[in-house]
């Protein structure tokens, strides 16, 4: 038996700042997880398709451009249409606290603010899965 936690790290929208996403991806890998990193400029369609095909345990969205207000609902909608809204979704980047409530209502399990240590994210994922 060789069960591994598989995580999708995606950068939705046009935002090109990927330092955080890459650091987290590596941190999760060093914690023993398999991380599928999609690269930049992912549409909601591409993100959901990746999640479906890779059958991931968690989806992590990284965004700093403020476009989460439009993109996240799109992603959650398509996830449901694909029959995989069972996959927990977490987010990080620059997402104002004012928006957190709305995002939780959408079904996003957690929003991590800048400065969150990798260990905290690893812990959260291990608990969720």
């Amino acid at each position, binding site marked *: 038996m*060789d069960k*591994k936690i598989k995580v999708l790290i995606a950068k939705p929208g046009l935002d090109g700042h990927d330092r955080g996403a890459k650091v987290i991806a590596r941190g999760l890998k060093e914690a*023993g997880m*398999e*991380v599928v990193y999609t*690269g930049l400029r992912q549409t909601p369609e591409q993100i959901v398709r*990746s999640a479906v*095909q890779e*059958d991931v345990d968690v989806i992590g969205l990284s965004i700093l451009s403020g476009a989460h207000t439009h993109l996240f609902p799109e992603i959650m909608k398509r996830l449901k249409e*694909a029959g995989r809204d069972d996959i927990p979704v977490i987010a990080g980047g620059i997402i104002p606290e004012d928006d957190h409530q709305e995002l939780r209502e959408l079904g996003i399990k957690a929003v991590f603010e800048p400065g969150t240590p990798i260990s905290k994210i690893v812990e959260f994922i291990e608990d969720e899965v």
Partner: protein
Amino acid sequence: MTKSVDRLYAEIKKGNENSIARAISMVEDGTKNALELMKKVYNNVDSAYMVGISGPPGSGKSTLTQRIVQLWREKDLKIGIIAIDPTSHFSGGALLGDRIRMNEIATDKGVFIRSMATRGSLGGLNSSIYDTVLIFSLAGFDYIIIETVGVGQNEIDIVKLADTTIFVTVPEAGDEIQAYKAGLMEVGDIFVVNKADRPKSHQMVLTIEQLVSFKEGKDVWQPPVLSTNALKNEGIADINEWINKHHEYLKEKNLMQANRKNVIRTQMINLMEKDLHEKFIKPILNDEKFEEFIESVYRKDKDPYTAVKKLLSFD
């Protein structure tokens, strides 16, 4: 056969993406249901045509793969891609980044991309790879691409599973050419020099042609060395043509059967080694007796050969 496995089998056959993905995960995790499923799959499914592709990082191999797939999609063929990356021996985790350069085909309904880690399998070849090939075949895919990065022994072991194996490089490869001596030259069916617009591209083509020219005999397959510019979509049709030619060659010389039996041979050896490791070696590794033996050998009270004999003796 449980009903849930039957249902899963049927859904895969229909091409249900969630089911395909789920089945691959089960196989990777090695669940009991996975075993049941794969028994049925092996008893019923013929493998679709497999194309293996590898090359050093920076060779543009993923772009090339994407272009080949786009060509096939024009003919309405369905493609499955298994993209393999190494598991870190240190952490057991892996970074699977092959999807990054395949954005254009990522939303194509006729393409299924699955990233896979080697998961510390002995060598690079993970038994889940061929299992996945068959799952894709059950789903009705016409071509299955097995792709990885690098030209080391592990990568060669992975891509030589395929019916047609392609190695990609770039004009500036330099040192990697040394690696081309063993292994690669024997395994590669098609060689591609990408980024053909670069200086020295012609020299690279000649160099590789020389290295593969040792293959003698009139019935032996002479691997072509092709020039491409994947970004500009040049030379892709040639690759496709040569894949078809190689396929014809295999059929003509009745080699398909032998090759597929080799795949099965490799798979079975792999499964046996896995089993033996699980049943006999792993328990020893976890036994404190093992640590004691290591101490004795270190203190020169025992030699490792005697120690191992003792450890493996079934008392």
